[in-house]
């Protein structure tokens, strides 16, 4: 079992190593001028250098604050609305048409409007993250809650639990695997969207660093924010899987 595990890890490292080797090879062979494609060693050296640079860390922190603020609001709203829609006919009649209309709308197009209404600071970016992360979470919560075995709810009601109590103590935990799947999608979308919002209009954050580097043709500095957001995404994903394992000890694992 454990040899199979290391074998799989090695297999997974293979494409990454190949990619880096290919990148290095292209640069060394002189196929691409350094202005267009810097060497991987240069990029990683710069990344390590920036990781100790307080200014860079401040930009990364700004991005993270926006990401978590937006994701947190979206999570609370999404789960609340999803549960409401799944448990109450009237709430469903109100929420369902709204999400049918709003969910497929590309929220990034709302960004100019958000900037005009909320300004260039945190608020417009957080609002965009909320708008984008809300629907996957809402949809997953609704589907998860709607798929809960009705007998569980009947049993809880039969032993005297109130409707709300049954919702919180039976439906919510039973829907948790689906909710977490939706939340994970929402989290990754949050990371993507906050970066894009910062690229479009911003004076700080990782996205701004990328745009600034591209305007001044600092190719090495263009790769650093990209790698940073990728690392942030990986860490968030790992943290999420940890949480999932803790919460859902009995449920089958998800890839």
């Amino acid at each position, binding site marked *: 079992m454990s040899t199979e595990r290391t074998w799989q890890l090695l297999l997974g*490292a293979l494409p990454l190593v190949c990619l880096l080797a290919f990148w290095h090879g292209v640069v060394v062979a002189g196929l691409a001028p350094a202005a267009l494609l810097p060497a991987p060693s240069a990029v990683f050296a710069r990344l390590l250098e920036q990781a100790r640079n307080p200014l860079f860390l401040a930009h990364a922190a700004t991005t993270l604050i926006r990401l978590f603020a937006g994701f947190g609001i979206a999570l609370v709203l999404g789960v609340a609305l999803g549960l409401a829609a799944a448990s109450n006919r009237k709430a469903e009649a109100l929420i369902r048409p709204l999400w049918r209309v709003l969910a497929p709308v590309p929220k990034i197009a709302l960004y100019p409007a958000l900037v005009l209404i909320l300004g260039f600071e945190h608020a417009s970016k957080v609002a965009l993250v909320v708008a984008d992360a809300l629907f996957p979470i809402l949809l997953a919560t609704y589907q998860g809650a709607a798929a809960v075995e009705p007998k569980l709810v009947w049993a809880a009601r039969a032993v005297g639990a109130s409707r709300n109590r049954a919702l919180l103590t039976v439906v919510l935990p039973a829907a948790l695997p689906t909710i977490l799947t939706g939340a994970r*999608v929402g989290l990754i979308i949050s990371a993507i969207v906050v970066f*894009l919002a910062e690229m479009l209009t911003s004076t700080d954050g990782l996205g701004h660093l990328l745009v600034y580097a591209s305007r001044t043709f600092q190719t090495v500095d263009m790769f650093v924010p990209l790698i940073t957001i*990728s690392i942030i995404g990986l860490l968030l*994903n790992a943290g999420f899987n940890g949480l999932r394992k803790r919460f859902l000890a009995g449920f089958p694992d998800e890839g």
Partner: protein
Amino acid sequence: MQAHASSPVGFAPLLACLGLLALWEAAARIVGISGLPPAYDALRELPLILSDAEALLNIAASLRRMLLGFVLALLFAIPAGLCMGRSARVAAFFNPLLMIIYPVPKAALMPIIMLWLGIGDASKTIVISLGVSLPVIYHSYQGARGVEEKLIWSAAAMGMQKSARLWRIVLPAALPQIFVGIRTGLVLALITMVTSEMIARQTGVGSILFNALDMAQYASVYAMIVIVGVLGFVLDLCIEMLRAKLVQWAEPAHEIAVGTS
């Protein structure tokens, strides 16, 4: 719920649209800032934009890039995902790479790809298909992993070849999941489309949108937002209808099982 199944849009979403417009109109009247023009002003811009040949060409250019990127992505993402789902080795090979690429905003690759391929259609199409492919790969993978083993054993016992099994058994069985990925992919394709056009402003809805913003033509900004929104809605509806046609059998029996009040 039967009414929902028969008519693709239904009455309620229309009401929701009207409600949102009324809310917008009211908010604009109450707030009264130039950055939030009343809904009426923005909607009045719509016929102007839609009768302008240049604007229509821009919208068509956006759609062409998006559809091309979308189809390219499906062509390699679905087979890749299915293979990953059926072979632990293939999955172990690709998973770390995909995990690293997933959280990278694909439109953020735009400035770098632009350096290599210019600001034209090629870079935007590539960026869009990258954005679409990841959710499609992920959901195809999940779908192929969840296929009932007995189906595959039966097919194998009847002498079906491995590649035929992938095509005839695994693909249809994974199709409901794949459609979940395609729908997420559509959202990402639209995000990437708008952003890439905003970063490399040449043609497309994204460049009209942000040029209007820069020139402080706020009514046009909101009119373009409405156009992009309708575009997203219609494309999503098309996918939903295709899904309903192809995987009718996978429709859940009870749509709502809890809290039947």
